[in-house]
């Protein structure tokens, strides 16, 4: 069996490299490796027999040979080249990662009000008390074996810290670039801590500048403290040979607000797991997702919202447009615990199939144990509204254009939720070009033409 070989190889990867892995990380990270690895060993890479991965076949992705290194890498990226491509350009404080590793010279960047952006690895040495409190506290190695694998292997990533009452003038943009002609398997680990009353705007961009085969297994833990506010956006714009699996765990304290958008424009296999725990009363959580996919791409968004306490609101809106032979999956799970009275939860998933070969599977689930709640979910799979098409054609708009307009309007509902103006315009532009089929052709350089 293929899966047995994959699991054996990954286990061997851990056992043969454990010395390197530990040597280049701090003890506070290392102490979780053994037990996480045990959990991974038990469960292995999830297969289609795992209910959560029924629609996402990971075997072809994991089967390929990737390069792996657990030693620090030295990558030079000329920043003047960076924004030539489609990397979202904003008036933001940019931090670069390559293959999930922090590559800036300044390992720890301090901003006014005590805000910190740093290499995950360096920060774990410098701020052990924060890591002790938050690291590996929100994720679950028992039901997510890929998160367990990440915990066992990860060495670096990004660390963001907003102390009490802090904020930054500009949004923080983190760009993870894939620059390597050879393929790579990387495990990125991020930790974001937003303390009481702080306000943060964070943008994660996954971009690729070269065309090797990549497999990223990212884990992010986010703590949103009392009355804190976090706007979190994720733009996935890689190439068709890159595979991106991410597990994001969000823990929300009392009266906190989490507002997130995930925009998947290009990529081979994209799998986003979100696990939101509304742990205290009065939390608010909004999650928007848009996937525009074609060729043989696959995107899967799995969102699990856990209403543990009363008076929380959660809202999810996920949309997908699938072209060619693309496949998509959505699974939402709203869990309302017995004590979570006065809960408002809503999840919506809308999908458009443009060809007969595209396939969409959706599973919006509600699991409710409290009686004084308002929960609803809706899912549709269909095609562009014929009446609307006719209306436009009758007014002399060409078919292609009418189609574009409708698709754009469909997508825009998710994009307009972005609260940072420049970013919203940027994503709108990207989406429009994506729908026109122009995104695989970069305006300024020829890096993507290869994949077109």
């Amino acid at each position, binding site marked *: 069996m293929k899966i047995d070989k994959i699991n054996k190889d990954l286990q061997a990867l851990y056992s043969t490299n454990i010395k390197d892995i530990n040597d280049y990380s701090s003890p506070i990270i290392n102490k979780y490796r053994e037990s996480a690895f045990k959990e991974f060993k038990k469960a292995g890479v999830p297969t289609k027999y795992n209910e959560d991965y029924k629609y996402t076949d990971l075997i072809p992705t994991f089967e390929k040979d990737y390069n792996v290194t657990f030693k620090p890498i030295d990558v030079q990226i000329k920043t003047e080249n960076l924004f030539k491509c489609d990397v979202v350009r904003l008036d933001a404080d940019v931090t670069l990662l390559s293959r999930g590793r922090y590559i800036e010279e300044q390992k720890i960047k301090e901003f006014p009000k005590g805000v910190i952006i740093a290499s995950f690895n360096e920060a774990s040495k410098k701020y052990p008390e924060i890591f002790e409190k938050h690291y590996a506290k929100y994720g679950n190695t028992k039901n997510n074996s890929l998160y367990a694998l990440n915990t066992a292997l990860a060495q670096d990533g990004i660390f963001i810290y907003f102390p009490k009452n802090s904020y930054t003038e500009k949004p923080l943009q983190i760009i993870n670039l894939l620059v390597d002609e050879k393929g790579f398997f990387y495990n990125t680990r991020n930790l974001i801590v937003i303390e009481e009353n702080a306000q943060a705007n964070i943008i994660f961009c996954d971009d690729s500048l070269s065309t090797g085969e990549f497999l990223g297994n990212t884990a992010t833990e986010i703590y949103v403290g009392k009355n804190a506010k976090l706007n979190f956006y994720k733009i996935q714009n890689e190439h068709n040979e890159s595979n991106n699996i991410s597990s994001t765990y969000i823990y929300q304290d009392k009266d906190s607000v989490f507002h997130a958008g995930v925009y998947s424009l290009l990529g081979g296999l994209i799998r986003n797991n979100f696990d939101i725990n509304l742990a205290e009363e009065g939390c608010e959580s909004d999650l928007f997702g848009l996937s525009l996919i074609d060729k043989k791409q696959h995107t899967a968004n799995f969102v699990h919202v856990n209403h543990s306490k009363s008076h929380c609101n959660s809202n999810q809106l996920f949309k997908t447009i699938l072209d060619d032979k693309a496949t998509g999956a959505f699974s939402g799970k709203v869990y309302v615990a017995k004590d979570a009275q006065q809960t408002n939860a809503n999840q919506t998933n809308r999908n458009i199939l443009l060809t007969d070969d595209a396939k969409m599977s959706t599973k919006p689930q509600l699991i409710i144990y409290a009686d004084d709640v308002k929960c609803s979910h809706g*899912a549709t799979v269909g095609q562009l509204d014929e009446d609307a098409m006719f209306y436009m054609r009758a007014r002399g708009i060409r078919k292609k254009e009418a189609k574009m307009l409708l698709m754009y309007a469909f997508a825009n509902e998710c994009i307009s939720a972005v609260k940072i103006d420049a970013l919203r315009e940027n994503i709108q532009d990207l989406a429009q070009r994506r729908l026109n089929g122009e995104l695989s052709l970069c305006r300024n350089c020829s890096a993507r033409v290869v994949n077109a």
Partner: protein
Amino acid sequence: MKEEDKIIQEVTENEYKYGFTSDFNNEDLGKGINENIVRLISAKKGEPEWLLEYRLKAFRYWEEQKMKNWAHLNIPDINYQDIIYYSEPKPKKKLESMDEVDPELRETFEKLGIPLDEQKILSGVAVDAVIDSVSVKTTFREKLAELGVIFCSFSEAVKDYPDLVKKYLGSVVPYNDNYFSALNSAVFSDGSFVYIPKGVRSPMELSSYFRINAENTGQFERTLIVADEASYVSYLEGCTAPQRDENQLHAAVVEIYIHTDAEVKYSTVQNWYPGNKEGKGGIFNFVTKRGICHGENSKLSWTQVETGSAITWKYPSTILKGDNSTAEFFSVAVTNNHQQADTGTKMIHLGKNTKSTIISKGISAGKSNNSYRGLVKVGKKAENARNFSQCDSLLMGSECGAHTYPYIEIDNNSAIAEHEATTSKISEDQIFYCNQRGIPTDDAIGLIVNGYAKEVLNKLPMEFAVEAQKLLQISLEGSVG
């Protein structure tokens, strides 16, 4: 006594009202299951070789399988060796008229209020009653036979129409479909068989009545309905069981095969014993029901009212193979006390222009858990397939759970699938409105719930609709949210 008072009185009897046992002289094969028992059942029924082979194949498959626990149910371990797989009321001889029926049995029927006696025959329902495992009496056979409609017990069908049975048995639910269908295929004892010939509209509603009576027995009945071209039949199914402390197993298989232009309407009012208030006893209702709309323009409509059983695991499904075929699923599932239900439907669209509608209403009260689990699958060739699903849940009380697991898998770009669901509780405004007009809270709840479920209840045939409405009220008695 006025009609309303009577209903109110009935409503206040919130104990399970069908909980009597009948003192038949039952004959059984003893507890346990093995290849020998399977052979014995087959021999006892004088079955042909091919059917025995079928049973053995199913048994060997079942033996290798383990019970899967993907459903949102907490199923205690079932000791399959502690169940009597075959039990029949004695004496068994060919019955010609009602007078020959065991008086005890007749009394049972009277208590159940099922129309077996002359007077009730006027109500025009043909009944096939299955007690424990054996079909005891099928009424109206001759009249139906004039039209060529075959309505008889399964074992008679095996004897009299072996070709038909052989052709359709397992054609919709193969023996290896799931754990319980395999078990049923191995040990099924009896059930009903319906065949509607070409162009015939069944003049009356056909009905089967299932009752588990003897202790420790499992009921494994098998229903096979075949609707030939351009025919129509409406089939009703009702179930009750006595009150017992132990759990009893009911694992039935229903197969419906529908040819071109034919239509079948299948209605169930399931009221197996749900166990007592502490959750002790009750029936495990693990049923596989599936129909295939094989021909063009065929139609299958499922309606179910599920109020009984300690655990319900049931997904009446439709395979829409013929072009332009239609399927409907209307369901009300009520759980109270410690009941658990994981029920829903599967609509598998294979043909062009196929349509399906799902309306599911779940009501949970007490400490119960009620889940809707449904699949809408549109195949690659199912052009213009259309689905609409709506599943609502109503919660009464803060200790119950209501869950929805819809699966939507679309493989065709001309398909449209919609799913909607809401979960809410009975609003205090509504109850207040009723109270203000002098309606006590309990009745108000009954009223509101019936209104909520009306969409489904309206689909039931007359006789059942009345019974179902009362059942809803009984089941929810004393469960003010």
